[in-house]
Structure formats: C-alpha cells, structure tokens
C-alpha cells in the first residue's frame, strides 16, 4: 500500500506488500475463480488487489460456517465472551495499522472509528452471558409445570456488511451475530474491503474457532444472491445492500427456506450510537421447555 510504511524507504529497502485474500474456515485462500479486483483509496489511489469471490467461494464459506456451528453454539457463553474480548485485545494491539487502513478506505476521523470498533467488541463480549437473562424468562403457566423460554442461535447467518463504514459498520453487525452462537458468512464492503480482511487476521489470532466467521470480498450483486438462496443459510442481514430492488430480490429469495431477514436500515446509520439488543435478537430463536412438577 502506498503509505510511508510500505513504500521505498530512505535506505532503499523495498517494502513487502500484503496480498489480501478471503477468510474461509480459518484459512486465507484466494478465490477459487482466480479473479481479483482493484481497490482504491477514497482519494482514488490504487491500494491493493482484493479477491473477487465466486459462487463456489460463497458455498465453501457456508459449508465452513455450518461445520463450525455445532461447537460454537454449544460453547459456554463465558467462553464466547472471552473470545470476543480477546478480539478487542488483538484489535487494540494493531490499532495503528487499522487507523492507517480506515483512513485510506473512508477517511474521516479514523482514530475514533477504530476506537469505537474496539469498544464495540468489548460491549458485545459482555452480552454473551447476559442476553439469555434479558431475552429469556420463566413463564408462570396455569398448571404444575416449570416453563422456561431461552434464546438460542438461529444458525448460519449471511451478512452483507455496511458499505460506508467498512470497519466499524462490520463490527457493529458481525459481533452481535456471533456473540450469541451463530456463525457467519460476511460479504465485506464492496469498494472498501481491506479493513475487513485485516480484521479477519485479528479474528484468526483471537482463539475464534475456524469457520465461525468467514469473509468474502467481491461484488454484492454477484455474491449476495447465492447466500440469499442457499438452503443451509438460516439468516440474512442486508445491512450493506444499498439498492432497494436488490434488497427486495434477496429477501424474496431468502423466503424459500424462511430465512430470518434483517432489512437494510436508513443510510447512513450512526454506528457510534448505542446499539441496543436489536441486532442480536433477529438471529435468536426462543425455545420453550415444559417440565412437569411432581413428587
């Protein structure tokens, strides 16, 4: 990348550039299609070539997410919370690198954006062992039964990450999906995918099991329909779909196996605002268990 740290330095040493790849099942493969696309800065300068994900990549990512769901959803809430907190720690350690990347991607106050992203991981980490208490409850049924409703994760969730906020928007939509035990296939911000791939490096070193988060870069209009129509995807967050006609098509395709769909919100969303629980609950199922009481 043409920043000071990566260009030819005064000593004449040529910097080593990073290849930006996909993140599937805990590994960093190139697109099986062999395709890539040029990513430029907000000012129009070339930054890197990102992998242009294909249908096959999307299907591989779904398979990895499904494979990871059993263990991740069965992990203790304490364990999931620790791992999300670890993500915040890793992100904090690479704060300067993320400020550089966010600055090139979207400009603005990159430092406050990265800080907010770190703090959001901490916020969601704390939710792991509280959402059940806040969103579940005992029910006083009229009979001799112990009746308990508890939230459980929906399954594999496809996420089209917000376009305008490639790091903070991604964290604000991804963390609430995985903290409750879902696994995710993410389509990164199409024109600004680099912070997402670097975030995948953070996830890969945070004890997050491979496959819990899978990240694709490429064209939303090409890849999102494969996720929307995939019969092994259980939920779909359309946060980053900016074309209303495409959003409607994706929602209609999602109906084939009755995916839980979160429609695109108002744009721009203020990702710095208090998120509430509204991004966790759409991908939670309520299970109610009846136990008879008797001696």
């Amino acid at each position, binding site marked *: 990348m043409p920043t000071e740290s990566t260009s030819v330095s005064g000593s004449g040493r040529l910097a080593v550039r990073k290849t930006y790849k996909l993140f599937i099942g805990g590994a960093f493969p190139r697109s099986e299609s062999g395709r890539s696309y040029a990513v430029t800065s907000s000012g129009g300068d070339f930054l890197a070539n990102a992998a242009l994900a294909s249908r096959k990549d999307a299907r591989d990512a779904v398979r990895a997410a499904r494979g990871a769901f059993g263990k991740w959803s069965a992990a203790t809430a304490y364990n999931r919370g620790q791992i999300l907190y670890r993500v915040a720690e890793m992100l904090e350690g690479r704060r300067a690198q993320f400020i550089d990347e966010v600055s090139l991607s979207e400009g603005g106050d990159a430092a406050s954006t990265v800080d907010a992203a770190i703090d959001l991981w901490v916020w969601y980490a704390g939710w792991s062992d509280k959402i059940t208490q*806040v*969103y579940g*409850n005992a*029910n*006083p*049924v*009229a*009979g001799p*039964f112990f*009746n308990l*409703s508890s939230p459980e994760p*929906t399954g594999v969730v496809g996420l089209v990450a917000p376009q305008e906020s490639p790091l903070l928007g991604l964290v604000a939509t991804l963390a609430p999906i995985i903290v409750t035990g879902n696994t995710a296939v993410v389509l990164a911000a199409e024109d600004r995918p680099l912070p997402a791939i670097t975030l995948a490096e953070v996830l890969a070193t945070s004890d997050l099991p491979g496959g819990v988060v899978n990240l694709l870069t490429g064209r939303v209009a090409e890849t999102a329909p494969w996720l929307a129509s995939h019969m092994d995807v*259980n939920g779909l967050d359309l946060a980053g779909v900016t074309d*209303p*006609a495409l*959003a*409607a*098509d994706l*929602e*209609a395709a*999602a*109906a*084939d*196996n*009755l995916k*839980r*769909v979160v429609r695109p919100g108002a744009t721009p969303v203020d990702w710095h605002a208090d998120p*509430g629980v*509204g991004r966790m*609950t759409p991908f939670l*199922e*309520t*299970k*109610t*268990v*009846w*136990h*008879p009481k008797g001696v």
Partner: protein
Amino acid sequence: MAFEYAPAPESPAIVNIRPSYGLFINGEFVDPKDGERFKTVNPANEEVLAEVASAGPSDVDTAVAAARAAYDTVWRRLPGRERAKYLFRIARIIQERARELAVLESIDNGKPIRESRDVDVPLVAAHFFYYAGWADKLPYAGLGPDPRPLGVAGQVIPWNFPLLMLAWKIAPALAAGNTVVLKPAETTPLSALLFAEICQQADLPPGVVNIVTGAGDTGRLLVEHDGVDKVAFTGSTEVGRLIAKSVAGTRKRLTLELGGKAANIVFDDAPIDQAVEGIVNGIFFNQGHVCCAGSRLLVQESVAEELLDALKRRMAQLRVGDPLDKNTDVGAINSAAQLEKIRSLSEIGESEGAQRWSPPCELPERGFWFAPTIFTGVSQAHRIAREEIFGPVLSVLTFRTPAEAVEKANNTPYGLSAGIWSEKGSRILAVADRLRAGVVWANTFNKFDPTSPFGGYKESGYGREGGRHGLEAYLAH
C-alpha cells in the same frame, strides 16, 4: 374390549346459527360489495350450517380503511389502561358465553366438545385476560422504554383451532395498540363471526377489529394490501413462503407460524403408560389437526415392542364419532379436502412399505372421518416421516442411542415442537438443549398457556405467540 357408553350429546340448541352472515367491518355486519357467498358445513354430517360472505378487493379495502381510521382516531390514542379494560371485558364475555362458543366450534370444526369446552375456549379467555394486563405495561416488556404500535395488522388464521388462533392474533395486537383485519379459515368462519358479536357487546370502538371471511384469495388480498403494516399468518409452510415473498421489499413486518413434523422421543426408562397417554394426546388430540402434533414417534429399540403393544391397546379404547358427544375422543376431519390428503399420504405410506394399523373402529356413514392410524417400520426417507399429514396418523421409528434420537428428531426442515419421555432429569435437559424446536414438552405434550411463547425454528416459521415474547411481533422498538 371396548367400554359401552350411553350417548351423552351436548345440545346444539344453545347456539343460534344465522342462515347468512355478512362481513364485520367498522363495527357492523355488512353485505359484501363485490364478493360472493359460500357455504360452511358441519364436517360430522356434511349439513350446510350457514352462508358466509366472501370478501373481494373492495371489501378488503373497506376493512383496512376502517382499521386505519380506528387506529388513527381512537385506538392508538387510547391510554393503555383503557385498552386493557376493553380486553378484560372481551375475556369476561368469552367466559360468559363459553358453552355457546364451544358448541359452535365443535359444530363448524368437527372437534370433540370435550376439547373445545375444556381446552380451546378456556385458553381463548385466558389469552385475552393475559394480554389485557400487558396493554398498560408495555414499557416493562423489555423492548425498550417507548415501544410503539405498528398500525394495521392483517391476520390470516387456520381452521384447526379457529377461535384460539383468533385469540393468539387479536389479543396481543390490540394490547399493543394496533387495529386488526382478520381472515378466518374458509371452512371454519363461524366462531370468528360470533366473536365479532362479542366485540359489539363489549362496545369495542368500530374498526378496531374487522373480520373478513373468504378463501385463499381473500387472504392474499389482505396480506398484500398496501394499507397493512403487519402481517401475521398461521398455516402451511407452503403458503407461508408465498407470503414471505410477497412482503419482501415492503415496510411490512411479518410473523409466521407454519407446519411441523414433531418428534416424540420415548427413552427406555420412560414410564410406559404415561408415555402412551402422551403419545395419544400428541397425535390424536384434535384429530391430529395440530401443527405441533407429535407425528413422528421415536422409540428406543429396547422398549419398542412393549410400548407399541400398550399404544395399540390404548388406541382400541378411543371413541371416534359425534363431536358433540361428551364421550368422544376423536371427532370429524375438518373437510373433504383434508380427508383426501390424509388418505392419500396414508396410501403412500403403505406403498412405500410401512405397516399400517388401526383399531377396529366403526365410522359414521356421513361426514368426514378417519380412524386413528399408526405406521410401523417407517424409515426417515418415507414421505409419512417427512411430510406433515395433519391428521390422526402416527409414524413410528426406532433408535438405539440418545445421539441417534437427536439426529433423527432434527432431521427435518421443520422445527416447531418435540417431546421427550424419560425419568432421568439430566437426560431430558441435555436432549432438550440439542433439539432444534421452538417448544419442547418433557413428559407431557400439547400443553399451551397464554404466558408461554409458542413458535418454530427453521421452516416452521418465525416470531413467537404468547407470553412476553408475543408482544414483540406487534411493537416497534
């Protein structure tokens, strides 16, 4: 041996069924403007009960406009405590007219009077009573400090629990401050029309509740109507998918309660007699016309023979016949079309190689009837193990280990309910954790309560009805 009983029929004289019904719009019964009329029959004897209006496009327009006007001018402005009192009033009138409602429900639906009297109608009153209490306590529902109603709810309900499904839809919607247009099922419109009278008796403001009768076309007009902010549907997964597609890209919020193929899992340490009662209740309650019916019996191999012997003995005691007879256990199939579907899938069960068994059972000559039936030797690939039959037909499969039971139980696109029979508490809790189903009954089955959320995982739909969770479907927050 079968016990002999003298007939103990409930008198139908308590209900005054009118020869013809209009649509209930803006607080009064009106003739359909462009709709036709259709007949509703008693499925136990095929006699026509009444003529009912079929709402067309302009009827649905009028109903939605009435609901909108009531929402804007009255209902959303009414303090929660006043809405609550209307709902309490409705609950009380339902209790006062309980016997009448139960008899009417059994006549139009075919379900045994014992069930409509002891299950459906008491639950209906309880549901209104429960949500009445929420109407002035919404900020405490855990949905944020300022939950707001959505507007006009378009609601479409099935024929298996006509009045109970109406209560599940209308009570939370009104408590949250919405107004409703509800379409009852084509074959069971009468209890909803009696409910409309109850709204009149309660002096509910006109337009808060509107009832449009009709078939699937009327339902489609309602859920696709631009003036509807919220769609709630209970019915088949097939229609649920179509509705989900039709609301795609709109502002409408949607909840769906769809089909099921519940596993009822019996472990080798289960109390056999108790489990048999639960299995019978799970699949023969309401003629098996239950989306959460325990239609797949998974029994541990070591007790399969003993359990099946006991189940067959118990099934031989079931009394099939007149829904109005207080001794009747299994009533009439709701319609000729449903009877045909049950027959057809049962024949497929036989042709795919499963063994069919029914107790000796004399069925009435007129009406729609199907004897309680079990299939043994069923494999997971058989259609009767995969498809919802929605009738008194049980598919029996076996398993050896708890892991195999869980795998088979979850091997379905549905995820509405499940049952577990075991004396071991830790096993029940562990298995319940691993079942992908919205309601799990341990050592019981088909229990419902207004405080207890009901709804599915996967292709059994989304959203919950009942309990605090049931409010979420009708509030913006």
